[in-house]
């Protein structure tokens, strides 16, 4: 069964989601169509430790360390990412061209590999256990979630650090804009859902979770997950309907839908179709105006879901697309798409 309990979670994102003064009521605006992460001071990185870190490694490690500080060594570190290290790769690439492949500095090459995040966390915490990096684009985080669910079945009474991390880099922003995934015209995050053009806004973030199979002290439960590869709206609709029937008890409904609607008109049909599966009981909310579009954005949604289900945070009005009659968020359904063809669904609930 693909499920586990989440005990702790942290998030560094373009909103005030990290540290002592978490505040998601205030929506920080995008700048130049980008939502850059608000980074903390990282007091735990001593001396010159930060100099070697790509932004992804910095925000990934920065988000992970508070979770590791209080807990015993996790039995594994599993990260989903796609574009981490692209800024460093870009630097190395520029060197290749500028110096015509002669005498290059290796630092940015080493920092540009996507497994640097999980490795750096292992290095800092001296963790020699299972360590894996999933890079399957818009399902990188979902694959990491499935990996952890399998690990818990294989190794009962374990705990794992699970994360989703991606960064905005000059290279991936330029390439994705050229490919039509980011808006070419100016657009503010507070307006993005009204847009009728292609593309979304670029975002980044690191969301980390300590997960295990022990219900005690859990703040949330991942009840089920599914991944779908399709560009057919009807196929998605049928699959998700089946997912809901299989994973919600008779009479149970999703109290809240968190959808990855992102202002790109090409993915809107999927979200519209998805919304129509629910009646006026379910509140429908959106999250990408907060974090932007990036391959592992569903990890940001999971962080939100954990905080809503546990009552740690109240959902701000700026997220609400359609207010439902549900008064408590006991079952939260996350539905996200990435670049149209990849779809992920997660059911998050109160620990049971």
């Amino acid at each position, binding site marked *: 069964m693909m499920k586990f309990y989440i005990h702790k979670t942290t998030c560094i994102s373009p909103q005030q989601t990290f540290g002592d003064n978490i505040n998601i009521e205030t929506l920080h605006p995008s700048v130049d169509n980008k939502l850059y992460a608000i980074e903390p001071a990282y007091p735990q990185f001593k001396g010159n430790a930060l100099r070697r870190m790509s932004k992804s490694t910095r925000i990934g490690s920065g988000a992970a360390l508070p979770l590791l500080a209080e807990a015993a060594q996790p039995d594994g570190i599993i990260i989903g990412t796609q574009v981490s290290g692209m800024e460093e790769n870009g630097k190395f690439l520029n060197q290749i*061209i500028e110096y015509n492949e002669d005498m290059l*500095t290796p630092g940015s090459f080493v920092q540009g590999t996507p*497994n640097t995040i999980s490795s750096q966390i292992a290095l800092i915490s001296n963790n020699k256990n299972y360590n894996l990096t999933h890079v399957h684009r818009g399902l990188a985080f979902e694959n990491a979630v499935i990996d952890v669910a399998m690990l818990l079945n294989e190794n009962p009474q374990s705990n794992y650090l699970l994360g989703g991390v991606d960064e905005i880099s000059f290279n991936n922003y330029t390439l994705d804009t050229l490919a039509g995934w980011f808006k070419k015209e100016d657009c503010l995050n507070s307006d993005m859902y009204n847009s009728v053009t292609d593309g979304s806004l670029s975002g980044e973030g690191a969301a980390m979770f300590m997960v295990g199979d022990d219900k005690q002290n859990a703040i949330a439960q991942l009840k089920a997950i599914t*991944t779908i590869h399709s560009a057919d709206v009807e196929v998605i609709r049928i699959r998700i309907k089946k997912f809901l029937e299989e994973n919600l008890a008779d009479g149970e409904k999703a109290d809240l839908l968190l959808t990855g609607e992102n202002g790109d008109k090409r993915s809107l049909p999927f979200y519209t179709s998805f919304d129509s599966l629910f009646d006026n009981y379910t509140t429908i909310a959106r999250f990408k105006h907060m974090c932007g579009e990036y391959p592992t954005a569903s990890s940001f949604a999971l962080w939100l879901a954990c905080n809503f289900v546990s009552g740690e945070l109240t959902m701000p009005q700026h997220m609400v697309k359609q207010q439902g009659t549900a008064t408590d968020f006991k079952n939260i359904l996350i539905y996200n798409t990435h670049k149209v063809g990849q779809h992920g669904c997660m059911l998050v609930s109160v620990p049971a």
Partner: protein
Amino acid sequence: MDRIVVTGIGVISAIGHSVAENHTALVQGKTGIIKGGGNFPSRYSGILPFGEVLIGTEELKTKLGVTEPGVTRTTLLALHAFNEAIADAKLTQNQLTAADTALVGATTVGGMCLTDELYANTHGDAENIEYVKSFDYASVNLYIQTRYGITGVINTMNTACSSSANAIMYGCRLIKSGLANRVIVGGADSLAKFTVNGFNALRILSDEACTPFDQNRKGLNLGEGAAFLVLEKEADAAGKKIYAEVSGYGNANDAYHPSSLSPEGDGPYLAMKNALDNAGLKPADIDFINAHGTGTENNDEVESRAMLRLFDSLPDFVSTKGFTGHVLGAASAIEAAYSILNIDRQELYPNLNFKEPIAGIGLQPVGVYKAAAIKHVMSNSFGFGGNCTSLIFSKV
């Protein structure tokens, strides 16, 4: 629990464009590492030795019937090996598209083999935008998925040199957890200025053919290629050729340094130990080790120490990187294929270019082709970031 068995293999590397061609070269001790093969435009072509796949990208496209724009060399190599593997396993179209067929791949280069195009695109040249959608690692598997209509779990991993070992391990776990009934697992990497210059900047490329486990080793040679395995439950493999069982796997992290292994080799040691525990085997049960053996000063010494730590009596071992070069994200999959051939044919292939054991360690790999009674083979991969994975294959 049903055993997980290998029912299909596909390989393309510097020593051949099929399993059969690779096998012939392995038996004959014929290396694929050369200077200036002609398919890799770089200032180092002709200067540094590489394990090049001697077939041009356009020719690969034609052979594979690829007409879509934006398909990179890495994807073409993957497709080539994938095709051989699924044909070998006699997978039907229905099976390929079934929801219980998974595809788990790995690559460290992905679309970044197009270094110059990538640079041009990000510096304003919008003319050559054929590849803007395929620069990432997932583009390889996403192409295969679309081409064949695969609907099951699809995943791509990148843990540097151990990437495809993790893909193989993950595939096994998908079957055991019930998320798949058959998996096609492996990896692909093509030569790229990106990785060539990265490794050169780290000063670990040798200007001669690599000499794994030799006292005078000077570094590694990069290679390119791809390999895929089809894994199924034994009960589903009735009537099919079964090459071997995947009997164990282990993953650990060295947690020491981003690009070199700890002197004691904790990561390699733990990965190997975890694989043995997972297989329910003892060190003495292993008949042969396909070592990571890149030919770098650091890896070969540390790997030797880790092996000596674990094995009271070290079995025969070999690095096959003297044949293919280090194929990074595809290395483990290619070497898994070779390990499976060791079992299937009951023979060992030599560690090329070895002359003198490492001083203070004194280990000697197998130097010549020989027939051998092989029941359990361990195949190891130790990567950047301390990502270490060990696989065990066994005779069925």
